């Protein structure tokens, strides 16, 4: 490998984002955050790295703090940081507390579908709210912000990550049963036999469009803890239906992977344009306080957003009056300053990807 090629190689799951995409991503983040801000979600900015015991979570890079000799972790998810802020420094702020955040996270490994180890999270938290209206508000807010940045074909999948544990018990050690549930493998689940297996099979068969799924779920004879979860789901679906009538809504009551953090209704945002998830969220209980939150994954989102039109670039030959160029920037032009006099101004402008040259006080197409 040559010296330069060696320098170009990045570790797995990391990448340079180049023009124009770096600017487009920054602009998209600020538009999403703008929607959140207009709904009263105030931005917080936690540090990149903190003591591992306050961050918790798996999959974080760890380093030792030479000052305190305690372990620190680079954040792999910003949600616990926002929850910590809400529970500590903002403990005395009135509830419900509405917070928003945007930042980069780093994970020790990517997934099969998303190899990225570093990516941007943009999210909201509604803390200290127990009503089902909170789930509906967060979901509607996410969809409004995604539509605002031009995403189409959005569908939402709802889950109850504590439903299966309420049926088989939290301490279920059967790795094959869990595996079978993760794959919605009816054959393997029903092979386990018994009343529990019949119930779990029925749950898997309920997966699908929301209305059909709810009908099937309501026909099941569930243990009390699971009944409470189910009635919450019914309530949330009704609120979402009235807030977002046209939304394609599905229910998967067996979804538990990556929802370990959530205690109530959880949701995943998909788009027909991507095989990966756009965002995820749900109701949780952390530091003794109920909340609902959601996170959008910027890497997936940026891949499927319609690309913006490139701004018009205006070449300003060396020696042109600075005020002239400024007035065109105000009109939306990008101006490229010639640093030295060029023999062939048009050729120089083309070389620098400009479509126009500023001549005689006007942009002239080349």
């Amino acid at each position, binding site marked *: 490998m040559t010296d330069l090629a060696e320098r170009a190689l990045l570790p797995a799951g990391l990448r340079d984002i180049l023009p124009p995409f770096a600017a487009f991503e920054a602009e998209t983040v600020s538009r999403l955050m703008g929607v959140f801000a207009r709904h009263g979600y105030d931005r917080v900015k936690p540090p990149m790295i903190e003591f591992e015991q306050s961050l918790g979570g798996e999959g974080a890079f760890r380093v030792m703090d030479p000052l305190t000799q305690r372990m620190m972790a680079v954040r792999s998810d910003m949600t616990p940081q926002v929850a910590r802020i809400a529970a500590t420094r903002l403990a005395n702020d009135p509830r419900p507390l509405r917070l928003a955040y945007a930042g980069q996270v780093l994970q020790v490994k990517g997934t*099969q*579908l998303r190899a990225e180890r570093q990516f941007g999270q943009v999210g909201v938290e509604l803390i200290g709210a127990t009503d089902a209206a909170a789930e509906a508000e967060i979901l509607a807010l996410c969809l409004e912000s995604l539509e605002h940045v031009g995403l189409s074909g959005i569908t939402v999948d709802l889950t109850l990550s504590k439903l299966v544990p309420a049926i088989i018990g939290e301490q279920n050690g059967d790795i094959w049963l869990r*595996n079978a549930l993760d794959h919605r493998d009816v054959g393997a689940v029903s092979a386990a036999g018994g009343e529990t297996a019949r119930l779990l099979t029925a749950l898997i068969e309920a997966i699908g469009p929301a209305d059909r799924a709810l009908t099937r779920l309501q026909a099941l004879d569930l243990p009390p803890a699971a009944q409470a979860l189910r009635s919450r789901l019914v309530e949330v679906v009704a609120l979402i239906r009235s807030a977002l009538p046209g939304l394609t809504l599905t229910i998967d009551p067996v979804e538990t992977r990556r929802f370990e953090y959530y205690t109530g209704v959880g949701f995943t945002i998909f788009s027909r344009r991507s095989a990966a998830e756009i965002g995820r969220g749900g109701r949780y209980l952390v530091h003794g306080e109920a909340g609902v939150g959601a996170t959008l994954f910027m890497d997936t989102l940026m891949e499927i957003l319609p690309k913006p039109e490139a701004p018009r670039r205006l070449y300003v030959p060396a020696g042109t009056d600075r005020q002239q160029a400024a007035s065109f920037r105000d009109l939306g032009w990008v101006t490229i300053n010639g640093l030295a006099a060029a023999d062939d101004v048009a050729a120089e402008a083309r070389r620098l990807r400009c479509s126009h040259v500023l001549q005689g006080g006007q942009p002239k197409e080349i």
Partner: protein
Amino acid sequence: MNRAEKLVLALPKGRILDEAMPLVRAAGIEPEPDFDNPKSRALRFSTNHPHIDIIRVRAFDVATFVAFGAAEIGIAGNDVLMEFDYPEIYAPLDLGIGKCHLAVAEPADLAGEDDPSRWSHIRVATKYPTITAKHFAQRGVQAECVKLNGAMELAPGLGLCRLIVDLVSTGSTLKANGLVEVERVAEISSRLIVNRTALKTRPEELAGWIERFREGAYGA
């Protein structure tokens, strides 16, 4: 054609295909004639549905195509699903074909000679290193897996390992190679698999196909 509207069905080459095709046809999907031409080098085939294509790939690759959403729907054994453990694959329907089981086997002349409860480490030849490692780890035994792609039965006799983990249907291959089955790891049959995202973003359509396969496999 818009990628979002295309539906790709991934089928495994080989033994399972002969059992799977009647189910595919019963679901109302009829591939172009070239599909049945053994001389054809094509890998992708059109069907009687203009938006549905069939691809024919190796059994392990069916799972990979479906996991990444390159195919929305496929047919694969649960051995493949357990081995890869792709979170993006759902297996909502047991097709009841390709039945066999995954078993641990050892040379007949060694059987019963030592006490498995005293093992801390064993070497196993298998096509399924993940399943094998998990299976032995569950009882505190570290399995060093030697990945082979076929002819596992040769390995113990040539001193490569003591045990093998492999698919067993009649047991005649084991017997012919002086091996005996000592333990069943899992029952295997072929599943209809679907891509998780496809199931969630195109719920009615995918649920419709699952239902048609169910009717084909078990009657309406």
